[in-house]
């Protein structure tokens, strides 16, 4: 997609490339209702709004699925439009911000598309948000009194606002006939694998366009398209255990070339299924594990990234502590990772090896985004995602307020890159694993393809054997400092945040058998 960006820092020089066209109707509707909200939305004798932000999300989802040669659908073509926002009352020093009730209010309203319809939904939204803010404002004051908090930090540390307008071309539905024919063809391959009970393949394209405006002048318009093919297989092991395996392949688009390239990966998937069928069940193990990228993604998310957000705690009704706030905020400057692997968050990165990334030039507080060095090469936690609500006295936003759960903007990450200083090839990683095995005098050690797909590598001759029924267990933050080496070949994993990671060799991991029960054999043979 041709990308044209216009990045403007308010109060400084404008940086513009090309002439992107902003959605006039959307921004006009947001601006007009925002002006009305700021000027007129006020209950007699109550605080008035001091900050308003709106965003409109357009979502187009195209999905086609086939199973064993037959087309099926889970969702029809989806197109929808959602309006969301923030209305805060009070002042920058003392406002409704940063206070959460036990049930945090989150609103998103589906909307028809016209100037009038958007105004109507923004009006509904503003009214509800305003009333909620008034309530929170009062509850927050009561909370501060009760807890005897007198010298709290201000609620808002102003930062320069930015404008970023990316050109958005109209969404075109992919060639459904081509994709459907291909899905039917490749899903029918599942019929040739005798032990498979089901084999499903689906292709999905997601287009998301975001339009943001706040009352300080911050503004952005951005777009993201992602395509992927997902395969999943179901079968019963000869001893009755049910297995469900799936794999996702990111593609640039559903062109003939991309689909043809995916076929090879699907064949590899079948090879792996063949290896899993009838594979031995594993036993408890403690030792080195080589995490392939998909398994490394789970490892890093569980141990680090799932909690590296919501950095600045809220005051929470009836609690002394915000249990959802990131525990990592207390570890700034400490060594949290083995040296030699740096981790960055790059909101403005648009793609990695042809795969579209979430790119944000301006965050959901209107602040230009910055690249963060989360973990330096020395393994220390260097930076945290921050917005305009301060964590400490000296505070500046680094433009990292995002929609973590699609509704509430909080401190978060975008595109996380794991970058080893001295990356090893796949062969070198396996050699290092075996060397470590020999050193520990283990009969075998493990390669984890995903968090529950393990391959045993025998120390004696290096031969490999698929093992089922295992999972890594008792992982702790300590394991992050146990990373021995990292690979050079990185893969992209969608989700929040998007993670680009190589393989990781972890020195010591507990691998335990999963608790599961076998099912009965089918009453009747497969047709």
């Amino acid at each position, binding site marked *: 997609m041709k990308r044209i960006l216009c990045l403007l820092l308010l109060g400084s020089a404008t940086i513009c490339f090309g002439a992107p066209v902003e959605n006039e109707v959307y921004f*006009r509707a947001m601006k007009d*209702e925002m002006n*009305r909200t700021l000027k*007129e*939305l*006020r*209950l007699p004798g109550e605080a008035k709004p001091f900050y308003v932000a709106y965003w409109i999300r357009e979502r187009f989802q195209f999905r086609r699925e086939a*199973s*064993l*040669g*037959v*087309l*099926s*659908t*889970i969702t*029809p*073509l*989806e*197109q*929808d*439009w959602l309006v969301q926002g923030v209305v805060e009352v009070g002042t920058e020093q003392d406002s409704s911000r940063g206070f959460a009730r036990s049930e945090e209010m989150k609103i998103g309203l*589906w*909307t*028809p*598309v*016209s*100037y*009038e*319809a*958007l*105004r*109507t939904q923004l*009006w*509904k939204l503003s*009214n509800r948000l*305003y*009333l909620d803010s008034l309530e929170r404002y009062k509850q927050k004051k009561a909370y501060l009194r009760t807890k005897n908090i007198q010298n709290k930090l201000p609620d808002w540390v102003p930062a320069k606002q930015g404008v970023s307008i990316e050109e958005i071309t109209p969404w075109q539905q992919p060639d459904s006939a081509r994709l459907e024919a291909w899905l*039917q063809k490749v899903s*029918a391959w599942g*019929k040739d694998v005798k032990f498979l*009970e*089901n084999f499903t393949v689906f292709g999905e394209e997601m287009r998301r366009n975001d339009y943001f405006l706040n009352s300080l002048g911050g503004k952005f318009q951005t777009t993201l398209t992602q395509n992927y093919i997902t395969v999943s297989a179901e079968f019963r092991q000869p001893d009755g255990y049910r297995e469900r395996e799936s794999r996702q392949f990111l593609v640039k688009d559903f062109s003939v070339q991309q689909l043809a390239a995916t076929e090879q990966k699907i064949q590899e998937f079948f090879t792996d299924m063949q290896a899993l069928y009838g594979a031995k069940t594993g036993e408890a193990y403690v030792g080195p594990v080589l995490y392939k990228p998909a398994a490394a993604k789970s490892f890093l998310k569980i141990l680090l990234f799932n909690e590296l957000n919501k950095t600045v705690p809220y005051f929470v009704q009836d609690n002394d502590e915000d249990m959802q706030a990131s525990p990592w905020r207390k570890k700034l400057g400490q060594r949290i990772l083995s040296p030699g692997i740096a981790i960055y968050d790059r909101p403005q990165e648009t793609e990695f090896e042809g795969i579209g990334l979430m790119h944000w030039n301006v965050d959901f507080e209107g602040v230009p985004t910055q690249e963060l060095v989360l973990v330096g090469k020395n393994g220390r936690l260097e930076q945290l995602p921050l917005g305009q609500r301060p964590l400490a006295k000296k505070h500046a936003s680094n433009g990292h307020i995002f929609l973590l759960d699609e509704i509430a903007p909080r401190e978060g990450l975008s595109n996380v890159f794991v970058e080893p200083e001295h990356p090893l090839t796949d062969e070198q990683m396996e050699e290092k694993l075996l060397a470590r095995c020999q050193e520990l005098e283990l009969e075998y050690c493990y390669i984890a393809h995903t968090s529950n797909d393990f391959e045993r590598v025998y120390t004696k001759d290096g031969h490999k054997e698929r093992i089922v029924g295992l999972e890594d267990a008792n992982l702790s933050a300590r394991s992050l400092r146990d990373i021995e080496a990292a690979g050079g070949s990185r893969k992209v994993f969608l989700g929040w945040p998007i993670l680009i990671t190589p393989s990781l060799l972890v020195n010591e991991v507990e691998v335990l058998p999963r608790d599961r029960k076998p*099912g*009965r054999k*089918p*009453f*009747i043979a*497969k*047709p």
Partner: protein
Amino acid sequence: MKKILICSLFLFICNLAFGAQPNCKATDQFPLQVMQAELKRNFKTLKKQKPPIYYLSYTYTDQDTYSLWVDANGIGDDTADHTGYIEVTARAGDEKTDNTRFLSNGDRADYVYMRREISQLNEKDPLAFRRYLWNATQQSAERAQSDLDKVKSDAQTSAERQDDSNDFVLPPKSSYCRTQEKVEADTQRIKEMLVRLSNVTRGHKEVLYSSFDFSIRQGTRYFVDSVGSQIVTPFLWMRLSYSFEGKTADGLELMRSKSYDVISTDELPDEDSLRQDMEKSLAELNELTNAPEAEPITVPTILNNRAMAVFVHEVLGHRMEGHRQKQNSFGKTFTDKIGQAVTVPFISIIDDATLETFNGKPLRGFYEYDDEGVKVRPVTLIENGVLREFLMGSSPIKGFSASNGHGRRQIGNSPVARMGVTRLIASETVPYEELEKQLIEEVKRQGKPYGYVIDDLSGGFTQIYSGRAQVFKLTPQYVYRIYPDGRKEVVRGADIVGTPLVSFSQIKAAASDDAVFNGTCGAESGWVPVSAIAPSVLLKSLEIEKTAKSSSKPPVLPAPMAILKESK
């Protein structure tokens, strides 16, 4: 929905082919051929298992849907979908005791197992379809056996059942095939029309929220079972509707809405007629906004025809559903009243789902075979005031051992006895004007300050579970008082409440103005299309309560459509 059955009759439109006659051969239908073959193969083995699967059925529903949502000059939803649903029913044990029995706590396992959604069957590749059926059968049979264990364990630890009838009666073998052409609606025209019409709320400060909708659901249902039935039937529902909502300063929520039943989009009212209807609804909403609030009172009341139709459905109809006479968890208002008078002698109530239309209007509750493969027949629930029958699915009850074709369900749910087309017939009627005169006479006779006319009901609930008062509470959308001098006054915030036996004994007279209410009713087996037909009826007495109000204020600022005069 454990203790209170909430059944809201949303105004939906029903459209089914007229003059339903078989027009095809079931065995020529590709899905049915495959289903029949796979069912035979599976049942042969399953019936020998321990415990045996003694009954097996497959349903394949091939469905097209279209939905459109418009508001404030814009389109929000414009979605078409085509999906096929495979569902398998397996019954383990025997007819006396099987896996489908309600447990003593009122719960029951969902025994219709939906396995797959398919968008397009490939006639060249029946093997894939067979694999889906096989897989679904396997899982359904496993679940049936496991649920039977729960039923048996529950029977051992629970008090004796008051009605120890069998859990199932095998349906008779049926063969029927009718298909119909897919209706291609001119959705573009409707879309453009609704966008234009959605501007009708401009300048109306009383309207806070509005919605303009159009939907179509159509397709074919294929059914086979181990008895040997082979049934193919079409379905088609089409609806255009709008609603306007408001709220008074004291928190009372108000609504005016209307919907239209059609067979094709050509039958929809033209744009001018729709606009006139909408303007009338807006005027009524404005009238309600400024109307005085109702006070609790017991007075003579007319339920206008469509409101009476809803009243019959909610207050009486649900209590006539067979399974409610069987389970201890229900109130069983009518269980032991067969042969007894339950209302006045000039009233009869039947449920006749074989009716396709009434006075030219399509009936949404029409169907030919129920979801258990039983041909539906008219059921006389009340004859000249005397209770005669119940609505029956394939779960027998004391005194009623066979289904009358009312085992119904939404896709993905397990069937129970449900209504189809419920009709109140009065053998003595008067013109509507006379009914109003009788209302005034009754008001004077009782010395009441006024009587009520309930013009439109939006829904409500009726409590049918034991341990709770067997009461109903219905929410009218539009009501007015009639004073002894004939003056009429619209009021807001009036709910009607009461108990079924008392209410139906209060019927004094009926008009000759039968009308249809088409809707969708929600209960244990999901949402099913229904119709109700009734004339306007005068009740000697009905209790009016104040409607509950919202605790939230109306919006601080007026809606943008109220202040935007022209299209921007």
